[in-house]
């Protein structure tokens, strides 16, 4: 094909011209999806479809029911990395033999195997993502070279940033695969322990007995000095394995933490999408129009920032606590909204500088005199420059949001009570910090420190990649962002 063709061709035409590399990527992705298809279908089916179905007109309801049946069937398909394939629940006979676990392994070994496999699977996805970027860059992109190539190159050599990326990757896998990673499920162990039962070998009766999970939890509590304690990497008396030990109520801490990671990640990402979207739109508008628009947004953002963020969120989540909004995702949606609404001024201040800078460039002037619509100018000529800076502060802010959410749930606010959240574990373990049950408070806290450090490191890495000259932080956005309103 000729060079001229190449310049004018759309992405679709370029794909049609040379389909082989893209098909190769697609094949690998298809395999990866196929082995986890059941889990994916399960996730889709776990959305509140009942509400949607009820809203449909009558003649569609029959069709919807058929689709739901198919969906449920698909959700039941075996998946490679599920609890049922590599099971870590079982009991030990006096002979030392394990019954019910995967290939008779001990629960600890079975659980570790599953965790290792899930992380390997997640890592393969990461590699595939990188590979498809390379395929796109080498085969389908207009330009041979783009500034982003240099940024990616710089980031690849930034070991501190890569360290952050690795931690964030581990955190995201923990959140996404939470149901499969825990040694037991939230449903069985935390939410409805009296609707589920387990089998164990009883020495008294000399046979296999059944017991409600709730009753078993009563015997596996961690209550510090003199009391019972099930520490990290220990078994309780019903042969259940607890990688992080148990809570004072006897529930499994790792399952709790994994589910809590999901909640934290959801709130963090949702609030950032909201705050980041508002920040970018406002930054572009103020940089393009300046003058009164700029002044108005300065006053609006300063007014929001004059209110202590954590206190406003506390107040607003209390005021909204009785409404339907507060029950969406156990209160997660409200928190995401509040963190987004109070968080955009910080992000906007961070990207306002770069947006103003780029608006002074001659190509913006050229576009204006050329008669390009303002929205197109902003999107095509200003946005790409601003997005990188947004990423830096988004990474720093995410850590802050996680701390803030944990702080609120530590006070018993925000996320509704039985739903796992990291701060609640810290609060539950508060009386036992200096006892043998230290793990309840300490492990969640250490996890928060690691994750927040990871987000900070990632932010540093992106900054150095985008703007290698500026290694001084002159603004105050950095630290306020990372502090989560001081929680």
């Amino acid at each position, binding site marked *: 094909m000729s060079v001229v063709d190449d310049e004018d061709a759309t992405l679709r035409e370029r794909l049609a011209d040379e389909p082989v590399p893209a098909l190769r990527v697609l094949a690998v992705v298809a395999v990866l999806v196929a082995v986890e298809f059941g889990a994916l279908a399960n996730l889709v089916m776990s959305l509140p479809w009942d509400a949607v179905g009820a809203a449909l007109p009558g003649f569609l309801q029959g069709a919807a029911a058929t689709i739901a049946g198919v969906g449920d069937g698909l959700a039941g398909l075996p998946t490679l990395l599920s609890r049922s394939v590599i099971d870590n629940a079982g009991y030990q006979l006096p002979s030392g033999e394990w019954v019910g676990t995967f290939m008779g392994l001990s629960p600890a070994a079975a659980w570790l195997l599953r965790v290792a496999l899930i992380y390997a699977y997640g890592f393969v996805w990461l590699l595939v993502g990188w590979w498809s970027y390379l395929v796109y860059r080498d085969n389908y992109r207009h330009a041979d070279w783009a500034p982003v190539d240099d940024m990616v190159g710089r980031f690849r050599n930034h070991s501190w940033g890569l360290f952050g990326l690795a931690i964030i990757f581990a955190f995201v896998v923990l959140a996404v695969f939470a149901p499969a990673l825990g040694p037991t499920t939230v449903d069985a162990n935390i939410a409805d322990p009296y609707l589920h039962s387990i089998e164990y070998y009883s020495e008294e009766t000399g046979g296999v007995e059944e017991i409600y999970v709730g009753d078993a939890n009563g015997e596996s509590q961690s209550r510090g000095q003199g009391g019972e304690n099930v520490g990290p990497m220990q078994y309780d008396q019903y042969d259940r394995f607890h990688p992080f030990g148990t809570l004072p109520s006897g529930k499994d801490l790792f399952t709790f933490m994994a589910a809590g990671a999901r909640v934290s990640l959801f709130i963090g990402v949702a609030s950032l999408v909201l705050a980041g979207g508002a920040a970018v739109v406002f930054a572009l508008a103020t940089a393009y129009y300046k003058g009164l628009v700029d002044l108005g947004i300065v006053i609006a953002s300063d007014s929001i920032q004059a209110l202590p963020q954590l206190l406003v969120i506390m107040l607003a989540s209390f005021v909204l606590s009785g409404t339907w909004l507060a029950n969406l995702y156990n209160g997660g949606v409200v928190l995401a909204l509040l963190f987004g609404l109070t968080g955009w001024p910080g992000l906007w201040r961070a990207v306002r500088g770069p947006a103003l800078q780029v608006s002074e460039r001659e190509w913006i002037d050229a576009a204006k005199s050329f008669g390009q619509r303002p929205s197109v100018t902003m999107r095509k000529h200003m946005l790409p420059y601003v997005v990188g800076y947004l990423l830096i502060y988004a990474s720093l802010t995410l850590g802050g949001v996680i701390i803030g959410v944990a702080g609120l749930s530590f006070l018993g606010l925000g996320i509704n009570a039985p739903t796992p959240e990291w701060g609640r574990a810290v609060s539950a373990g*508060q009386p036992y910090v200096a006892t043998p049950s230290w793990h309840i408070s300490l492990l969640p806290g250490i996890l928060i420190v690691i994750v927040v450090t990871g987000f900070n490191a990632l932010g540093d890495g992106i900054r150095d990649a985008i703007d290698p000259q500026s290694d001084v*932080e002159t603004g105050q956005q950095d*630290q306020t962002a990372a502090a989560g309103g001081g929680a």
Partner: protein
Amino acid sequence: MSRWSYFARRVLLMIPIVFFGTTITFVILRMGPIDPAAAVIGASGDTEAYTSVRRSLGLDQPLWLQYVDYLRDLFTLQFGYSWVVNRGRPVWELIGVYAPRTIWLGFWSVMLPLFVGLPLGFYAGLNPNTLSDYVASFGGIVWRAMPNFWLAVIFVAVLTQSEQLFGFQWESWLVETNIVTPPELQRLWVPENFFGAFKAILPAALVLGSASMGNEMRIGRTAVLETKNENYVETARAKGVPGRKIVYKHVFRNALIPLVPIITGEAFLLLGGSVLVETVFSINGLGYLFYAATINADLPLVGSLMFFFILLSVGINIVQDLLYTLIDPRVGYGGEGA
């Protein structure tokens, strides 16, 4: 534009900010789904009491009139009364009782990072890429990632059990103090009282200042690294100015400029963060009062406290601008000078 007219303009801009901040609070309190009068009465649901509370809060007026009254009361500093937390007591009196503890806590959580974090950062900046630099830098990064409430929980547990853990008792060390009570702030000019109050607040202030300490260290380090290579430092060295004098007169003073907004910004963060730290350490300060007022639905008290916080934060901003105007002569000359 001169420096002082720049400053005056900044102060003038604070007025709409106080106004809009108060409006946001009004919207949350009066236009939200919670009826303040019903919340004050609680579950008992006595109709007569309800109407009388409604009347004295002015809730029977139309909304715009409520808004005008609300603004007028707050801007004339009539903060009204507490309805639930401390029934019938004027809000000003409550602030008078609770604020000194928060101010004491806030003062030390700004000062401690300054006197610990900054020197460490400057030291690391003067000795870059040595082992002590790495230890200090990494320590700072981890230290600032720690959630305050968690750190506070650990501090309380370790200090209350210091006898068993380290064989030394924190509570009776030098002066007798408790760990989870508000500090005694009477007669601070007596050295003994002062030291007692300082020791009582020390763990909480360290926790609340932890993020700032890490930040100031990092920023102090980069600031020293930057200024160390400036031309004027090299000139001074070429002139034969002794090394110690270069560090104090030329490096430190210029490295301090970027730190001003950081420090004032932190002073503001402390307002929000004090809720958690005060709760864990049982320091009955303003943050704790706000928390108690919120969970007990004492919305009139909440509204007045929020206005007080807005005034505080705007005040801190003005101080920051004032400091900037005094320290950095380049401020206010728009793009050309800076």
